[in-house]
């Protein structure tokens, strides 16, 4: 099989995560950085990207300017400095509305074609110039300028706004206009269109037909997809089918589609035989296989272990219980390696003593005060357990990428159904039903066993 028909993408979350991206830099193809993050830690990230010679893109997060202004504010009630720094590169009317008036952008702000064009080009320029402008005065620049490094992102992301069935008409027209103005100035190969939609769009296939028709009217080559809080493990059959229909609509027209927040289902859609063809999937270093458009609170972090046979992060305690009931814990490390995971991290930490598996669950007690004033203790992952879980997750994602080069889609789904059935007494039956749904969808698209 041709192995390089897809891009493995990874998202830069926080500066603290940089060391993991550095460690795995040769394993992933594209680094995705949010515009506010690179604005916030400009020097550090610019140097990191330039000196590590990453192929990267910057998501300008223009959708964040259309939601409630509170989402742009920090705990001190002021617009976050990272947003201020990012917007400083955008059009004057955007700065005025967001920073001075503390009002979000609405469709009527874009009535003038001149303003639309100015907005589109300023957002593109911000991405194009950010790293080079922050590198010019630095020591490393003089060494790198004689290499082939352009310092520019792989693609410039055309500004975009989120659409749902209610706001569709207004924002669609503006989104399309952003594409038009961008294509007037740049080659299509240099640009990426970002499509950000809420799940209600996927409930009505007429919207999908319309999106594909309207977007493909333009000469676009690359489409980045973000569906609000969309997980193939949670989605209904209808949503999954329409997700595939959307991907297929573009991929059939030779447009490369990349899911910006995708789980194992999206990896399977990168298989060379997939009828709805994704060209890449992005996730974070341990999370980010789905993401809500509007930020939601995170809660207390818990130790989660990526259970490869069912391709999901599961609470450590549940996995440990499962493995104990299966008779793998506490001693059968050979069975663990053959049935559960034989990644580099597991071999390093477990070796020949499966008691070491407990290190994935390493935690310390913290006291949390409830609203009632009562204090309760909760377990909080130790830094070392977090490190182990992150590396285990990344090695497992690489295994998934590797697997689509070796096996047929239905064989891979069947493997997950088998594992889910085996685990169902502890983890419940939903996983079996989920993978069976995936199977039905792939079959309905024409996938066959070899």
């Amino acid at each position, binding site marked *: 099989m041709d192995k390089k028909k897809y891009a493995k993408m990874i998202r830069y979350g926080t500066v603290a995560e940089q060391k993991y991206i550095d460690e795995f830099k040769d394993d992933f193809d594209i680094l995705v950085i949010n515009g506010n993050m690179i604005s916030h830690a400009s020097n550090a990230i610019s140097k990191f990207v330039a000196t590590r010679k990453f192929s990267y893109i910057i998501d300008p997060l223009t959708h964040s300017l259309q939601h409630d202004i509170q989402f742009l504010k920090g705990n001190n009630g002021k617009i976050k400095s990272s947003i201020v720094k990012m917007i400083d590169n955008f059009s004057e009317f955007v700065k005025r509305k967001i920073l001075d008036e503390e009002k979000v952008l609405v469709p009527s702000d874009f009535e003038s074609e001149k303003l639309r064009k100015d907005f589109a080009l300023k957002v593109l320029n911000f991405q194009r110039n950010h790293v080079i402008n922050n590198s010019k005065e630095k020591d490393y620049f003089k060494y790198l300028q004689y290499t082939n490094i352009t310092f520019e992102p792989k693609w410039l992301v055309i500004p975009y706004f989120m659409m749902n069935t209610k706001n569709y008409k207004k924002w669609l027209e503006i989104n399309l206009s952003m594409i038009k103005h961008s294509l007037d100035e740049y080659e299509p190969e240099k640009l990426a269109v970002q499509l950000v939609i809420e799940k209600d769009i996927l409930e009505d296939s007429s919207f999908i037909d319309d999106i594909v028709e309207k977007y493909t009217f333009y000469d676009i080559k690359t489409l980045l997809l973000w569906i609000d809080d969309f997980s193939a493990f949670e989605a209904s059959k209808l949503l999954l089918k329409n997700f595939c229909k959307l991907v297929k609509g573009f991929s059939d027209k030779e447009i490369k589609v990349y899911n910006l927040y995708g789980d194992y289902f999206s990896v399977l859609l990168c298989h060379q035989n997939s009828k709805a063809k994704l060209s890449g999937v992005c996730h974070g270093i341990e999370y980010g296989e789905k993401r809500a458009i509007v930020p939601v609170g995170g809660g207390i972090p818990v130790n989660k272990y990526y259970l490869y046979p069912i391709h999901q992060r599961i609470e*450590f305690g549940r996995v*440990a219980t499962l493995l*104990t009931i299966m008779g793998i814990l506490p001693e059968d490390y050979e069975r663990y390696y053959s049935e559960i995971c034989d990644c580099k991290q597991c071999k390093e930490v477990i070796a020949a003593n499966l*008691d070491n598996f*407990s290190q994935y669950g390493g935690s310390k007690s913290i006291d949390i005060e409830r609203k009632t004033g*009562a204090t309760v203790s*909760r377990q909080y992952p130790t830094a070392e357990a977090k490190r182990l879980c992150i590396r285990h997750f990344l090695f497992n994602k690489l295994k998934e990428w590797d697997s689509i080069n070796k096996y047929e889609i239905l064989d891979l789904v069947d493997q997950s159904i088998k594992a889910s059935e085996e685990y169902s007494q502890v983890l419940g039956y939903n996983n079996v039903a989920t993978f069976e749904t995936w199977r039905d969808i792939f079959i309905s698209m024409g996938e066959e066993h070899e």
Partner: protein
Amino acid sequence: MVNLLLPNQKITEKHQVELSEQIFSKGNWKIYKEVPLFSSSIDMVLIDENKNVIAIEFKLKNWKRAISQVKKHCIAVDYMYICILKPKNKETQHNIESVCKKEGTGLYYFYFDEEQNPCLLEAVKPQKSKYVWQKQRENLLSTLLLN
């Protein structure tokens, strides 16, 4: 024994735990409350003189949920109990007891006697957990005994 409830005051789960703690404190137990384990916590852990680790999950009524919660801890403890308010209906009692026996979970009924003293009745004895991962059990035990 101090009854923490005022006359006619409705019992809460918190009272149930505290009054049960008073009762257990008369025995040979080391008692720990709200013991964190994995991503949740055990309402109460008792350690007996043989260092058996016993988890108790308290609920006023929702005994099915109590069973499901306490069983999450099965790999780290030797015995598991639920503790609920004693149902008045005999048939309900019988039903709960038979499910607990089937699940291997012990059952304490919490009630007040005629003098309004809080009492615990061990209605079902637990079976020893079949799935103990000694490493995890020892981690829990040593953490508790250190405190």
